[in-house]
């Protein structure tokens, strides 16, 4: 228990020093709703966005994060202007239930509370994703969403991380 407390203090201290949320804070956020952050990895751009299919209408004006029938992609009707990777993670009852990675230029809408954590370094971002992908206690669907999102972020650092993961013996 004491060790856990020290770790928490260390993470909080790091957050104060670097002025950004830590991976642990993001993952264990006790605030339900969508959490979003952006990475600033140089040279990394993605056009990922989406459109929502509604009966009789097709919105191409961006993503409704709460939508159940949403198509994602980086081409055709789905794409947005290239931008940095913008991560969206949905917490419900303290559990991570959905992950989306979109272009920071992709307009989104939601009726759910949205907490913006600002810009996160690439390392912290990878740390957060790895804490999901490598956590076998988290549902397989969410781990797959995390891996998919990480690949969609078009980040070199992300690919290096996944390559290391796949090369482990």
């Amino acid at each position: 228990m004491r060790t856990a407390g020290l770790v928490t203090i260390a993470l909080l201290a790091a957050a104060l020093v670097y002025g950004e949320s830590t991976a642990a804070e993001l993952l264990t956020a006790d605030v339900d709703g969508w959490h979003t952050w952006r990475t600033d990895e140089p040279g990394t751009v993605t056009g990922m966005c989406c459109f929502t299919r509604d009966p009789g209408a097709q919105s191409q004006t961006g993503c409704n994060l709460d939508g159940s029938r949403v198509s994602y992609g980086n081409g055709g009707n789905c794409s947005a202007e290239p931008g940095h990777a913008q991560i969206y993670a949905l917490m419900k009852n303290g559990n991570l239930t959905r992950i989306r990675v979109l272009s920071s230029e992709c307009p989104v809408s939601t009726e759910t509370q949205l907490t913006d954590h600002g810009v996160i370094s690439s390392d912290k971002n990878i740390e957060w994703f790895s804490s999901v992908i490598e956590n076998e206690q988290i549902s397989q669907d969410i781990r797959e969403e995390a891996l998919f999102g990480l690949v969609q972020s078009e980040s070199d650092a992300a690919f290096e991380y996944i390559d290391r993961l796949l090369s482990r013996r």
Partner: protein
Amino acid sequence: MKERALFILSQIDEPEAQSTLLRFAREANGELQAEAIRMIGIGGDKEALAGLGEIYQAGDREVRDAVLEAYLIAGDKQAVFEIAANTDNEEDFEEAVDMLGAMGARDELRELRGRTGMSDSLIDAYAISGDFETLRELALDNSNVELQTQAIEAMGIVGGDQVDSTLVEIYKGAASDEVREAALEGLLISGNDAGVLELYRASDNSAEKKELLEYLVMMDSDDVWTIIDSALDGSQ
């Protein structure tokens, strides 16, 4: 009621019944005509089926589609082949070729390859009919890259071990990006994540690995998760 009467006619093995059915197929209009044509297919009487050729030639698109459907029901590959082989109309050719694909008429489709040249619909039909051998020949023929890449992708529809290993070999030996991309698309269509993973592991080019990884994730690869989870289990 009329449709029911047509069905009963189709089941009577008498020349008068078949000629009455054929008369409806020739002289009726709209749905009744299409139904009469369909019933000739269900009845399967050879003379009545032969009479559909004339109705096809005189008919509009709906009538022609009904005749093709009747041949499909009767399993008359030769009649559909004759339409494809003798028409100058591109739409008629494509519709007939599609039907031959659905009928699994590999021999007839192979014969069309020599007689009428190639088209997208013919390659699709090779795929639908499961003709791996013909697609493989086309996939290895680099005299026309467009046809070659279409054939490579279409192999993915056929699927199976032979396709999987051929697509991996085509990818490895590709002389152009188009051919390499087509092989990757083929692997995606066939769902061969093991093949893509093999290519990923064999590559030492970071851009190529990045693309292969994107495909693996798109394919929702179980093999990737097996590696990840076994790596995690090993490190615990």
